[in-house]
């Protein structure tokens, strides 16, 4: 136990390099973390166990995660490989993100039965489906840029733009990226069609200043059941009497932790990956990234729905702040069996301090800019060691509907 405590105290700040010119240990730890691909262990092979930097220590319950402030002991599962990346993000006390719940319309015809693409006949009652992201008629890059311009005019700076799961096709992602300024990061869900020789693509692209684009695939395919077929009105293309698996490639599973500063490590999850406890959720819980962004293709993000429930679990233990974003189109497609539809609730925020906050897209708006501010709270280990008030929690400090300027309006 004493050895654990000593190693933990010595490892303060690993994974988030700061200005410490002569810190040989920090330099070595950072080198090992990169060279050994997702572990700080020099001599223990990563197939046995992994040790990663840690941003939050659970303050409820008592587990092995309660024993350290700076190091996380992770399962050595080969199913998902953690990658730890550092990028020089200029962090202020607060930062602004532009959420674009694109597409604003989803058509039932974008869902397609591709059961015939299965290499072997599926059992009775199962099928494969895909969702086609690409609708080439849209000048999406221009639209995103104009929203960014308007959000920047209103807030001064927009540090990042976020689009939901499957919001873009690959070429659209590149077009959007090329129109945004280089210092603005872009996190977007990208989809691609299935073919006879390839499953579909459902992945997140992360583009940060100075860093080449990072790709992370979805880990768990979506399974549509009868209730969901009816909820989204897909019965005309997918019979409700089968269970439909999303036909996407789920090989090469890895999870990126992006260290933006000493206070801010970010992880992005795609839809089901927020809900399923393994393999990815165990890693997220062990590391406790300060900010988790969940890109969804889902119904309204109301407090009662599944995303808020799973976000609450992560906010409670280990203390992550969670942003969930779906498309307005998918939210509109979703019809509750009873009661009014609340399709304008396109995003949800949950942090360790407050109950879940619903974020609405007002009728005249095309996107929502949110402000996040860093709050600090002292965390303790089970053996009573404190962290000197360094545990950082982004909290929601502003919500601003953004619309594309109409002719004659100020820009």
């Amino acid at each position, binding site marked *: 136990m004493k050895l654990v405590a000593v190693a933990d105290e010595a490892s303060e700040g690993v994974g988030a390099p700061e*200005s410490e*010119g002569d810190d040989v240990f920090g330099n070595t730890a950072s080198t090992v973390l990169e060279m050994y691909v997702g572990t700080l262990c020099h001599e223990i092979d990563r197939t046995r166990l992994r040790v990663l930097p840690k941003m939050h220590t659970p303050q409820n319950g008592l587990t092995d995660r309660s024993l350290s402030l700076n190091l996380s002991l992770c399962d050595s599962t080969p199913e998902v490989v953690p990658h730890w990346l550092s990028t020089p993000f200029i962090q202020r006390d607060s930062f602004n993100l532009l959420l674009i719940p694109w597409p604003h319309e989803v058509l039932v015809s974008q869902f397609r039965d591709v059961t015939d693409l299965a290499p072997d006949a599926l059992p009775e009652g199962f099928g494969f489906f895909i969702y086609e992201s690409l609708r080439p008629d849209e000048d999406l890059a221009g639209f995103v840029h104009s929203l960014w311009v308007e959000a920047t005019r209103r807030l001064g700076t927009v540090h990042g733009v976020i689009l939901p799961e499957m919001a873009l096709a690959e070429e659209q992602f590149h077009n959007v990226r090329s129109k945004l300024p280089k210092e603005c990061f872009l996190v977007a869900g990208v989809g691609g069609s299935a073919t006879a020789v390839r499953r579909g693509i459902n992945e997140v692209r992360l583009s940060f200043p100075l860093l080449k684009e990072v790709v992370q695939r979805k880990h768990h395919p979506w399974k549509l059941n009868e209730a969901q077929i009816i909820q989204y009105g897909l019965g005309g293309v997918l019979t409700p009497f089968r269970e439909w698996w999303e036909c996407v490639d789920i090989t090469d599973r890895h999870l990126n932790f992006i260290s933006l500063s000493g206070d801010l490590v970010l992880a992005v999850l795609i839809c089901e990956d927020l809900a399923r406890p393994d393999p990815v959720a165990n890693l997220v819980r062990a590391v406790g990234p300060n900010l988790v962004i969940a890109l969804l293709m889902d119904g309204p993000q109301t407090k009662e729905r599944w995303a808020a429930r799973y976000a609450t679990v992560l906010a409670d233990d280990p203390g992550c702040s969670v942003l969930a974003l779906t498309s307005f189109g998918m939210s509109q497609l979703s019809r509750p069996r009873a009661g009014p539809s609340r399709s304008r609730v396109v995003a949800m925020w949950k942090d360790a301090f407050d109950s879940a906050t619903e974020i609405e897209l007002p009728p005249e708006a095309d996107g929502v800019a949110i402000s996040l501010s860093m709050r600090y709270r002292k965390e303790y280990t089970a053996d009573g060691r404190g962290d000197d008030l360094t545990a950082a929690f982004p909290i929601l400090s502003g919500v601003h509907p953004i619309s594309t300027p109409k002719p004659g309006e100020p820009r």
Partner: protein
Amino acid sequence: MVELTPHESSVLTRIIVYSRVPGREKAVEELSGDARKVGEVFLDPSKYSEMTDDVREAVDHFRLWLENNRRLREKRLARSRRAR
């Protein structure tokens, strides 16, 4: 602006942050292209003016980030002192 691979970004971050740890020259030599040029400027700031706009922009970004990190670190230390 220069686009760095995760490896290049990681190496540059280390040589910039841990500026008094030995082995920086060797680490820069193992880089190539614009990433190496960015590293060379941090070893020898007088080379800044010889570099392309893209490389200078990347150097400026790293310098700004380093300054930002210092500010965050000072704030963190101040919080730590208050917490004790």
